[in-house]
């Protein structure tokens, strides 16, 4: 396996949108050992929302959020050989089609980048203190957590990556 630099980890919680191209450049910055960058962008979708939902509002726990996200990213960097992890999570009021979350993982190896990104998203869904509220003309209601998100996070206790050590991406 390659000698790895310490993974560069960045976590931001903000109301503003994010610039994917900028985040990609930051992740790739002067690191010619990176062969693969996998990005995940989560969007507010309206399929699951009732027809009357006009906006989503995200609340979080300042302080714990950044700590929890940083820890999840570090855990990923222990499990997979990563060069960079960038997480941007939005809070405040969002509308259908708006991006909520960006997770960007850079590695020499494509399978490591894919797996680490999915791992981070699964843990983010269950361990990062964000709460969604739906706004309707009749007022707001809180979104319930999904059991499937918890089972998705659970499966990482069992997963062993068999590929990343020898499937480089040039």
């Amino acid at each position, binding site marked *: 396996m390659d000698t790895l630099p310490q993974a560069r980890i960045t976590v931001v919680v903000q109301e503003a949108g994010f610039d994917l191209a900028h985040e990609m450049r930051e992740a790739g910055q002067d690191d010619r050992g990176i062969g693969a960058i996998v990005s995940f962008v989560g969007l507010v979708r309206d399929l699951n929302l009732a027809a009357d939902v006009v906006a989503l509002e995200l609340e979080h726990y300042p302080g714990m959020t950044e700590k929890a996200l940083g820890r999840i990213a570090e855990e990923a960097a222990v499990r997979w050989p990563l060069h960079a992890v960038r997480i941007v999570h939005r809070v405040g009021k969002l509308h259908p089609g708006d991006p909520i979350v960006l997770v960007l993982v850079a590695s020499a190896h494509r399978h490591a980048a894919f797996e680490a990104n999915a791992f981070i998203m699964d843990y983010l869904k269950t361990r990062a203190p*964000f709460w969604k509220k739906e706004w309707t003309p009749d007022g707001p209601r*809180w979104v319930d957590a999904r059991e499937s998100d918890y089972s998705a996070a659970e499966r990482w206790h069992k997963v062993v990556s068999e590929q990343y050590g020898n499937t480089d991406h040039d």
Partner: protein
Amino acid sequence: MDINLLYFARLRERFGLAQEQLTVPEGVVTVAGLLAHLAARGDAWAEELAGGKVFRVALDQELVDFSASLHQGAEVAIFPPVTGG
């Protein structure tokens, strides 16, 4: 023992409270003990914390289970299961 309590999302609204300083009574040493103490306030407190509803507790900004020990100056947050991402 004095702790700082935080409530988020639906629980914050139900309790009508985002934050409170609390002097924990003698004998209350774990999260479970604290929850029983808060539930004894009745109404929304009893319904949410002792009514079989699902919630999470963070101690000093780390998720913990209810057997975790409190300490002087602890930051304890109680909130619904998270729904981020």
